[in-house]
């Protein structure tokens, strides 16, 4: 589902990723871990083509996305649900509209959108809060809205960047359980996280980065 072949990403002098080769199979659940600044977010950004790599080639869903033309990127992204590390909620739209956006871009009918949004918000524990502005939500609530938006259109791939950083233990477990459920339905899930407790509890495959290099891998122990 995802393949990186000798991928590097440089920003000036900074090597955010160095010669990374990695494959994630369809339906796999995979943690990306490593200290702050290791390149986890950069890896995910390359996957949803926010930027091209400096070197190497990348395939997502069988498509070579290394130099994917601007006019096709949105089509790729419709199959990828992303939980951004900084949430990227639109402050002028309410929670329901933010979550619904991922369906709206597909041209989904309004009623379907409302139904799906309600369902997915309930899953993340924010049922009935569609009308609120993301500005007034607590950090953890915003994070769960971001999770909801990533899942609402049933994407083939979910990329979650630190999706539990603002959540308490119980809530974090719930969110990973949701991702697990999605994964069990066949979705490929990649989660960048620091939370060793969670990774112990849900011992899927881990790939570990440090200063841009892939430095280790722990196979799934489920």
């Amino acid at each position, binding site marked *: 589902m995802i393949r990186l072949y000798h991928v590097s990403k440089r920003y000036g002098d900074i090597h955010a990723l160095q010669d990374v080769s990695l494959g994630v199979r369809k339906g796999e659940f995979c943690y990306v871990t490593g200290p702050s600044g290791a390149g986890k977010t950069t890896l995910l950004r390359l996957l*949803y*083509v*926010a*930027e091209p790599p400096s070197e190497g080639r990348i395939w997502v869903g069988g498509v070579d996305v290394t130099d994917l033309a*601007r*006019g096709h*990127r*949105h*089509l790729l*992204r*419709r199959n990828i649900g*992303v939980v*951004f590390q900084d949430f*990227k*909620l*639109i402050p*002028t*739209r309410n929670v329901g*509209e933010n979550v619904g*956006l*991922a369906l709206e*871009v*597909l041209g989904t009918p309004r009623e379907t959108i409302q139904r799906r949004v309600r369902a997915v918000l309930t899953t993340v524990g924010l049922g009935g809060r569609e009308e609120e502005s993301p500005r007034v939500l607590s950090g953890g609530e915003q994070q769960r809205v971001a999770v909801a*938006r990533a899942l609402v*259109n049933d994407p083939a791939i979910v990329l979650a960047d630190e999706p539990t950083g603002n959540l308490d233990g119980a809530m974090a477990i719930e969110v990973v359980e949701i991702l697990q459920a999605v994964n069990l339905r066949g979705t490929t899930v990649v989660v960048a996280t620091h939370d060793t407790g969670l990774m112990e509890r849900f011992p899927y495959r881990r790939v570990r980065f440090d200063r841009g290099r892939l430095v280790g891998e722990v196979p799934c122990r489920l």
Partner: protein
Amino acid sequence: MPSVTAHLLRRAVRSLRENVYLSLVATGVVASATLLLGVFLVIVHNLQAVTGGWERDTHISAWFAPDIPVERRFELKEQVGAMEAVSAVRYVSEDEARTWLAERVPEVAPVLADLGPDVLPASLEITLAPGHDDPEAIHRVAETLALPEFDGLDYGQQWVERFNAFLSMLRILAVVLGGMVALAGVFLVANTIHLVVFSRREELDTMRLVGASDRFVLVPFLVEALLQGIVGSGLAIGALAVLHHGFLVRLQAAVDLGVAGEPLSFLPWPMVLGLGLLGVALAVTGTWAAVARFLSKVA
């Protein structure tokens, strides 16, 4: 209303509501730029009406030599009137000429009575047909009028030239000023819209990242701009009409301007429509350019 339009309008209206402040600013700026242009157009339009009158007034005066019998004068009037280049001839008697002079030069009015009945001789006032009123044509007509019965010809050579010079200067000035106001307007509107879009650039970014096509992002901005343009232009034209009828026309009546003569008129409808369309076009193209520019910076 087809459901796509309804959908787009709904999205645009929602966006307007979400960005009330930014929308108001954009609308206000479109309105004031359009209003400035409109005020300018009203002035140019009335200027043209007034000076158009001046132009049409140029004609040839052919003064009769003394002692031409009245029958001969009218014969000549017929002859001249039959010329292709001439659209009208009027016979001006000595009396009329005196009255005209007294009006034309009020300073001499007090003494004209003492100067005897025939201060000025009679004349023919020849109005030229359209297409024959340029300086060369006037000159040609004047040459055919070089008869012994006429004592002198005045075809306002000097005045025609002066007025033409004055008018062409006024027109160039109007074009330059109009161009400047228009440029300033376009610049200000484009800038404002750019700033408005600038404050929403993260929204553009996010929309792209969750799978929106460029068109999906662009279209509601354009619909919004259309609404802002329509409302802004409407306000501007309304304000212009209020200014014109409530102020200019009353002012004119109050001072009873004897010089310009004709009442100041409002813009003709096609011009009003053009002005409105210009405002709308400004809003829409400004938004288009700004959004496209920001989209091109976004992945």
